[in-house]
């Protein structure tokens, strides 16, 4: 079978894919940032002395980890508005779903990291008169950041790929544009291959940056 790769089509549709690329970035970075920040607070709740906070955060984390992301995104678009009485835009629903999902996974990364620090570190710091929050900020987090970095990188990569699910809600991100173009031109091979390459170009720098950081931090301490 002879198949000629239609490079002209790729060139022609590339600007449209780039529009999708921008939307993917707009979904990815904010949901990652919001998700990890919220995940940190959730981890503090998981580790807190209050039974209510511990229980509540556990339920939240398990709900988001043990159900499909695809359903979560659709749920935030169709079901959540019924509860709060406000219709979200597809983009907002997707961003919310991705961020909350990320927060559940981020919480577990932070919790594992914080718990990996030996009790002696807490005691050494507290014996100087440091407050709990200061111990966390000055002693515990700087030590666990290095350990958590690979897990954060994994999460970042996952979220970038998960953002393609937003196409189901007709968010005009990269995957949506790719599917639309491939059904318009009946050329899924060219279009989807290009989409995959664009995703790679998007994600690889993140993993590269993380590896560089890891290597640099390995020298210290």
């Amino acid at each position, binding site marked *: 079978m002879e198949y000629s790769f239609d490079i002209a089509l790729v060139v022609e549709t590339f600007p449209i894919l780039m529009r999708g690329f921008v939307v993917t970035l707009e979904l990815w970075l904010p949901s990652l940032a919001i998700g990890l920040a919220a995940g940190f607070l959730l981890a503090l709740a998981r580790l807190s002395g209050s039974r209510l906070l511990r229980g509540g955060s556990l339920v939240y984390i398990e709900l988001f980890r043990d159900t499909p992301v695809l359903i979560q995104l659709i749920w935030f678009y169709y079901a959540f508005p019924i509860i709060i009485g406000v219709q979200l835009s597809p983009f907002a629903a997707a961003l919310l779903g991705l961020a909350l999902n990320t927060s559940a996974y981020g919480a577990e990364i932070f919790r594992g990291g914080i718990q990996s620090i030996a009790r*002696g*570190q807490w*005691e*050494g*710091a*507290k*014996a*100087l*008169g*440091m*407050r*709990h929050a*200061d111990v966390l900020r*000055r*002693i515990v987090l*700087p*030590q666990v950041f290095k350990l958590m970095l690979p897990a954060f990188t994994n999460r970042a990569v996952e979220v970038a790929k998960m953002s393609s699910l937003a196409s189901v809600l007709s968010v005009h991100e990269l995957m949506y544009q790719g599917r639309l173009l491939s059904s318009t031109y009946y050329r899924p091979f060219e279009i989807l291959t290009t989409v995959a390459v664009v995703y790679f170009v998007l994600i690889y720098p993140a993993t590269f940056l993380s590896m560089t950081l890891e290597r640099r931090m390995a020298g*210290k*301490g």
Partner: protein
Amino acid sequence: MPEPILQVSGLHKWFGALHVLQGIDFSVAAGERVAIIGGSGSGKSTFLRCLNFMEMPTSGRIALDGTPLGRVSAGKPDTVRYPEGELCRVRERVGMVFQQFNLFPHMTVLENAMEGLVTVKRMKKAEARERALRELDKVGLGGKTDVYSGRLSGGQQQRVAIARALAMEPEILLFDEPTSSLDPELVGEVLRVIRQLAEEGRTMLLVTHELGFAYHFATKVIFLADGVFHEVGTPDEVLKHPRQERTRAFLERFTEFSF
């Protein structure tokens, strides 16, 4: 007799069903040096750790300068709550040196000694640095300031830990078996630093198995057994002329293999 700095009354500590401290009354005045000895599991470390609230007393009160610490809520006279700020202020004044050093591995020797000054006392970096250097010099580590603590020997690490505690200028220093995790040949360098502090007239409490050192170091020796003070007296009284059979038996185990 000078006014006591720290006063303990009716101190009990339970770990689950285990009654570790069974009612202790104790006070320490400025310039006193107390050595606490006893078998493993006797509660001596737990007692020391209650004094700066590394362990929370199950019941009993601890007073600093005559003021009882913690708050008692109305209707529940047995439950004392300790606000974080109050505990932090106590710990600033009552420093501690641990068996396992507990240095911060992501910081250099100098940063370790500066940490309390910068974070707790909110001191300016330059000033904190100056004071930290002074204390590191005192423990003989002025030449190792930029080294990460993991690269030091156990004895050096413990001396950094002492400098870190000293930098806070505590009124009382607690030593929790400071030489127990050291190789025998490194014990001396740490004990010499502690002896030097004793010569300065500092108020210190030392939990130790180094009975010889305790004899020369202490103004008062406490033999703890089964969670109570079994025998209290001068080093000469407790270590050389113990009155209690239990104390004698404990001391004999130390001389069993001497030559």
